[in-house]
């Protein structure tokens, strides 16, 4: 079953068109990567799904058209977005950031269980639980961003460059946790990464964007085998 289906997506910032036809689909419980150079339109694609940029083309989630919906309405359908740059709520504590993530949920007791579970997964956050999030390191803020999205208990998680600016070992910690959350909850993922090696530790299939167009897609194994992908994204 297809969870998310994007067809011929276009998008503009003012008069400048940056997406010229992006197509991809995410199956239920699947994990799909978006690869591409800087400026290819990866972030814009995720923002289009979340309703943060106006678009042409089609975005269907569980059969419903997402276009024209506001970000909070998209979130209410079960899509959580870990934005590029982490989107930390810096004046709020770690605890409050996680509570904001759970804003749409009514099951209070389960919320606390989920917070406890996250803190086991990210012991760093446990130590900083009542500090302002602005005091966290980059890696901790990224863990918090993933945690905030997880707290919504989404059906689909949009992840935008979760490794950006992190030391390799920290990036690995974050991705290990993402993998655990995926195994435990079966949440589907659409994952943007510059670091294709990291992306391939999670995704089943991936799409390559070039200047706002999908130019190639395939399974992780297929893509890893292709010379142009190895050269461009896997460091040879």
């Amino acid at each position, binding site marked *: 079953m297809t969870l998310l289906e994007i067809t011929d997506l276009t998008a503009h910032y003012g008069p400048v068109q940056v997406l010229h036809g992006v197509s991809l689909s995410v199956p239920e419980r699947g994990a799909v990567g978006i690869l591409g150079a800087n400026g290819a339109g990866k972030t814009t694609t995720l923002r289009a799904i*979340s309703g*943060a940029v106006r678009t042409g083309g089609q975005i269907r989630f569980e059969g419903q058209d997402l276009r024209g919906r*506001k*970000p*909070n309405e998209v*979130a*209410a359908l079960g899509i*959580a*977005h870990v*934005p590029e740059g982490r*989107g*930390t*709520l*810096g*004046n*709020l504590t770690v605890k*409050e950031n996680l*509570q*904001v*993530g759970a*804003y*749409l949920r009514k099951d209070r007791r389960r919320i606390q269980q989920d917070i406890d579970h996250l803190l086991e997964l990210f012991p760093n956050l446990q130590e900083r639980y009542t500090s302002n999030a602005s005091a966290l390191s980059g890696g901790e803020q990224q863990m918090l961003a993933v945690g*905030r*999205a997880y707290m*919504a208990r989404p059906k689909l998680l949009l992840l935008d460059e979760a490794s950006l600016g992190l030391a390799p070992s920290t990036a690995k910690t974050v991705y290990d946790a993402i993998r655990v959350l995926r195994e435990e909850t079966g949440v589907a993922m659409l994952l943007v990464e510059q670091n294709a090696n990291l992306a391939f530790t999670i995704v089943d299939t991936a799409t390559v964007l070039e200047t706002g167009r999908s130019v190639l897609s395939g399974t992780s194994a297929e893509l890893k085998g292709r010379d142009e992908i190895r050269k461009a994204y896997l460091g040879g």
Partner: protein
Amino acid sequence: MGTFIQLVVDGLAMGSVYGAIALAIVLVNQSTGMINFAQGGMAVLSAYLAFTFLGLGLPLIVAILLSVAASFIIGALIERFLMRRFMGRAEDTQVVVTVGLLTLLTGICGWLWSYNNLQFPSLFPSSAFTFLGAAISWRSFGTFLAIAGIMVLLQLLFRQTKLGLALRAVADNRQSASFAGLPVGRLLMVGWGLAAALGAVAGALVAPRLSLTPGMLDTTLVYALAAVILGGITSPVGVVVAAWLIGVLENLAAVYVPIIGHDLKIAVPFILLFVVLLLRPQGLFGRKTVVRV
């Protein structure tokens, strides 16, 4: 000693009024990044509404509460239909819009209720009680208590409720808030509504002392802005403390510093501002962010 205590309590009362307007300005600034120069003008309109409800024969407290509720709605509508169009625009555009709104509101009040002084009754008796040999007016003491009480309630709202958390989240990072499912537009309206309601309380409490005119809060706005800068725009508590400080110091200086007197006391917050900003550009309690007014 008696005079001193009296001056301090009177100063705290006026300082509370400055503090309420200042807090309203902070509320709006933290959620939208704007400085609302019309905050005082909106509070004056609220006081006129209370005055009108009073004229319909309603008891004073009911008239004030109705005006507070109406002000909440007016504030929310101003956000939705006026300010939202200018969000994210250049700061000077926003300044022009809110100053324009101030002028418009003053004009509307003058047109509907005239520019004459109107007598507005006080919630508190005009008598005084004695404390440590000082005669303290119930009005000053009541004004101080009422606004201090409201500030505690606001603090509880922001720290202890889901709505308060949502308002702070929107103020902090609008995009993350919306990605988490928070209805950002509606929360911005609530923020403006709360600010307007707070201003309405301040307006109703100070109107008996200043007597009601369309320009009643023009000076108060200046003091409130001084408190905002002095306290640091990121610190609601700091802003209120700064407002109290200004209220008390201006009262004391007017009496104890002969060259200042009542005519020059408006200079007090600015001397204070000047000194503090030289030493601590981020304000007494604020964090280091750039504040442009």
